[in-house]
């Protein structure tokens, strides 16, 4: 990323903040249930965007190459170059997450849904394959390294579509 692009990201962040403020004011002024819901959802979207943008800046500080976030492939057959078994590059500066914290991230009652694979904790809250924070009978909030290995052998690419949020300690 060059200076110009960096500037672009910063402007985008500023813009998102403004939008968030607007949405919060909106939340106060409306009584309609559905509009409220809609606004809340938009808020969440904006926060995700912020998250994404700040992450991008963080990464920028560590290494100058940015791995583009790929759209989630919906066909089971991944392009062969993604089929490698070496672990994907994950950001180095992830916070540590204890087993206890992981166990709380079950995705129930407003908690996020996290799963750990190979020592990295991923956020699957809004991953399409994890509706109701469960996936083929597996609940979130667990270390599923063994299950992943047995069910998705040779499909390491799946992990690269997930958002890493921490290192399991």
């Amino acid at each position, binding site marked *: 990323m060059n200076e110009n692009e960096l500037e672009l990201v910063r402007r985008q962040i500023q813009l998102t903040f403004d939008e968030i403020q607007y949405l919060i004011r909106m939340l106060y002024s409306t009584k309609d249930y559905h509009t409220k819901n809609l606004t809340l*959802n938009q808020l969440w979207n904006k926060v995700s965007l912020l998250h994404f943008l700040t992450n991008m800046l963080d990464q920028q500080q560590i290494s100058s190459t940015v791995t583009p976030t790929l759209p989630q492939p*919906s066909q089971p057959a991944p392009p062969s170059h993604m089929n490698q078994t070496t672990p994907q590059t994950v950001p180095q500066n992830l916070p540590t997450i204890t087993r206890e914290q992981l166990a709380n991230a079950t995705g129930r009652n407003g908690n996020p849904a996290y799963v750990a694979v190979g020592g990295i904790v991923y956020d699957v809250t809004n991953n*399409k394959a994890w509706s109701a924070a*469960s*996936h083929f009978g597996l609940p979130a909030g667990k270390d599923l390294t063994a299950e992943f290995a047995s069910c998705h052998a040779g499909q390491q690419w799946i992990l690269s579509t997930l958002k890493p949020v921490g290192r399991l300690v």
Partner: protein
Amino acid sequence: MIDPHHVLPPEDMSNEAIVRRLTEQANVRIQNGQLKKKKLVWLELTGCSGNIISLMNGFNPNLEYMLTLMVDLVYSNSLMAAEGEEAIERLMSVLDEEFILAVEGAVATKNNGLYNVIGRWRGKPFTALQAAKMLGEKASHVIAVGACAVDGGPSAAKPNLAECVGLSDIVKRPMIKLPGCPCHPDWFLGTLAHLLMNGVPELDNMDRPLLFYSTLIHDRCPRRPFFDKGIFAKTLGEPTCLFKLGCRGPVTRVDCPTRKWDGYVNWPIGASTCIGCSQFGFPDKMGPFISYDITRE
């Protein structure tokens, strides 16, 4: 004659039209003697006998059409006029002939199969297990119809007291699998038509015809724009995406959203969540079907 594989607009491309074209072709060939009506045996094993009910719900083609023009149905517990020994004799008589076998229901294996007796033969109980083995080995083609026949389905749900398994665990041979709970009549009749005209349809790595089971429900779902915008329903009845409530559309590959059910009027996500009934592992691996203690957004 139109080759059903290479039809382009302006020909009608609707689901109904495709099934109709396939069956019309079969019909033409039956009438000019190119094809002889094959015998079909429909075995109901350990299940709810709902796939035959679903088959009766077929609109185009329908059951009447299948019975009179596509195949000669020899055995069906739900429909046949004969009963008792006479019925079982009929079943045994096909063993010497060529026949297609359609099986619905899982195979109960506990106590040598005694958890599901489907008749009496020569004075002894004739179990689902015996029937599956006996007919499965002799049939020219085997079609496992519905979730139970494919991998045990609801009949094998935990704790699976009857020790039910899918047909392929009992009969080791190539077969066509049509999961779904129940199987959509078009999935069966379309497969049957293909089998009669062009042989075994192209299958995926889990033996399901690509004709019907290739696209994720989630990729064709009319609620998808809501998913992409992160607008999720908090209760059933909202028109938005049901993901947070436990919708299994994102892991289920079948053509429900475009085909729809019962004369093509509606489909599960038109009413409530998808419960992944056409995905292997249903129902245990698809639960919870509906959950209200949901994640943050």
